[in-house]
């Protein structure tokens, strides 16, 4: 409720600076809020604090070295970021990826989606104002997933595990058992979150009907991923343009109805359940075989004068790689189409007319990773 001021009482709008070093901005994001009392009248976002020139660095590195930089553009879902890159290289080099490598890639990408969404759930809980409980629960579940990634690839966040053509090395012998083991704890963690937040009246009061964006606006702003699906648009690249073996997998695309902050939360929670089911189906189809193509050149060189745009469904939306080759073992131009940057465009539209405190949870609900926005 807005208290109307007396007519002779002089008021003026206030500019508030949020960030870049502020924990609620999920990195180094800065926004300037123009507020009238507690209502946001205007929002000016500032990005670029985490720009490291990953695209340019990739132009000076060959296709094996570039994988490491892709990890760092999207550090919460590195497997998904690597996937787009290696798929773009494979498309130009016309490499046939062995079946086993594809299944393992799918399992790892979905596991990474789980760990990334856990991170969202925890951080979102903090934004809404329940510091501690959901955050620590999310990190406990994410820890199990990250431990699994460490056992497979050797690193907890910057895996550098996918290679153009397949995988860097074979997964450990107890891979299947370990994945199933982790899925048990993941299921329990998702149930905990469901009990903790989904029907919690305080949480609903904070999130329902806050930061609404219509489907038309969402499409026009180029949003993608769960943030778009929360507005009721059923667009999932895994479904609409299946890559790898997603066409052989049976899964649903959960969509929201309202397009508010709560829908963006619930869509992600439902998506995690689908990911668990996808991983189980992948494990059933996983068979023995090579993980790299037989005729793999020692130094990969791409044909001259070709370009490709590959897009995959990363946890935050469409993660696309535009690769131009002019021959040689390095890309001539590499462009990362970041889902977070496009989703962030909607922040102003969502926030104007809302309370200042809600601007923070709206930002949290978009689930940005600043390293992906700035690259």
């Amino acid at each position, binding site marked *: 409720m807005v208290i109307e001021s007396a007519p002779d009482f002089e008021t003026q709008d206030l500019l508030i600076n949020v960030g870049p070093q502020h924990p609620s901005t999920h990195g180094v994001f800065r926004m300037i809020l123009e507020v009238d009392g507690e209502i946001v009248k205007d929002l000016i976002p500032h990005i670029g604090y985490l720009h490291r020139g990953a695209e340019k660095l990739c132009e000076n590195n060959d296709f094996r*070295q570039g994988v*490491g930089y892709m990890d760092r553009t999207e550090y919460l879902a590195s497997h998904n970021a690597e996937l787009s890159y290696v798929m773009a290289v494979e498309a130009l080099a016309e490499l046939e990826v062995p079946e086993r490598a594809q299944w393992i890639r799918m399992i790892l990408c979905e596991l990474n989606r789980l760990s990334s969404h856990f991170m969202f759930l925890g951080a979102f809980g903090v934004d809404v104002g329940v510091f501690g409980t959901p955050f620590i629960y999310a990190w406990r579940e994410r820890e199990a997933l990250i431990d699994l990634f*460490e056992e497979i690839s*050797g690193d907890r966040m*910057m895996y550098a595990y996918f290679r153009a053509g397949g995988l860097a090395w074979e997964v450990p012998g107890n891979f299947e058992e370990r994945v199933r083991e982790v899925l048990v704890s993941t299921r329990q963690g998702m149930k905990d979150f469901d009990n903790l937040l*989904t*029907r919690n009246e305080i949480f609903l009061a904070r999130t329902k009907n806050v930061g609404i964006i219509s489907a038309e606006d969402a499409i026009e702003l180029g949003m993608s991923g769960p943030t778009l699906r929360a507005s009721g648009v059923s667009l999932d690249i895994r479904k609409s343009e299946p890559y790898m073996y997603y066409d052989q997998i049976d899964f649903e695309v959960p969509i929201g109805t309202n397009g508010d902050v709560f829908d963006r939360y619930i869509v992600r929670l439902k998506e995690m359940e689908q990911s668990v089911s996808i991983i189980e189906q992948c494990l059933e189809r996983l068979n023995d075989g090579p993980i790299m193509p037989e005729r793999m050149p020692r130094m990969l060189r791409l044909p001259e004068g070709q370009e490709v745009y590959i897009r995959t469904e990363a946890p935050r939306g469409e993660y696309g790689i535009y690769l131009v080759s002019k021959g040689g073992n390095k890309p001539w131009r590499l462009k990362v189409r970041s889902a977070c940057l496009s989703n962030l465009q909607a922040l102003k539209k969502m926030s104007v007319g809302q309370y200042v405190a809600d601007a923070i949870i709206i930002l949290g609900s978009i689930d940005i990773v600043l390293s992906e926005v700035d690259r």
Partner: protein
Amino acid sequence: MRGIIKSLATTMSTFIRGPVTHGYPSKHRELPERDRAFPLLLWDKDIDEPFCTGCHACERACPVECMTVIMKDNPNHESQDGNSKRRKIVDEFWIDYGRCMRCNICVEVCNFEAIAMNNTWSGHETSVYDRADLVMDLPQLMAQSKSDEIQEWVAD
């Protein structure tokens, strides 16, 4: 109200759960075999010299250019009445741990399996007061392999 009671029940259930954290730094979690910290050079115990011949393969493949290698003629070569088959051997080797991005590429390109990623806790606890202390030289890179502190895991 029912929702709040349900969420409180979830919170309460943690009282009967065991702790999931480790008492770091007094207690160290066991690291998996493939754990990657920073690269180390390996020591050939049979001949008592490094495996590394200083061939610059890792230096060229490194995406962040964190390595510097200098090669020399092996004084222990058979032609010099030694017992080694390596004609060339590493003279100096520096790795700047401050620049290394731990991508494992140097291990993959090495033709002599002379370099491996440190998979012990010593590779993770590398805090120093001066950034220059992170530039490791040959004796420092060899020390752990010489004293059998690492069990190398080299990707095939």
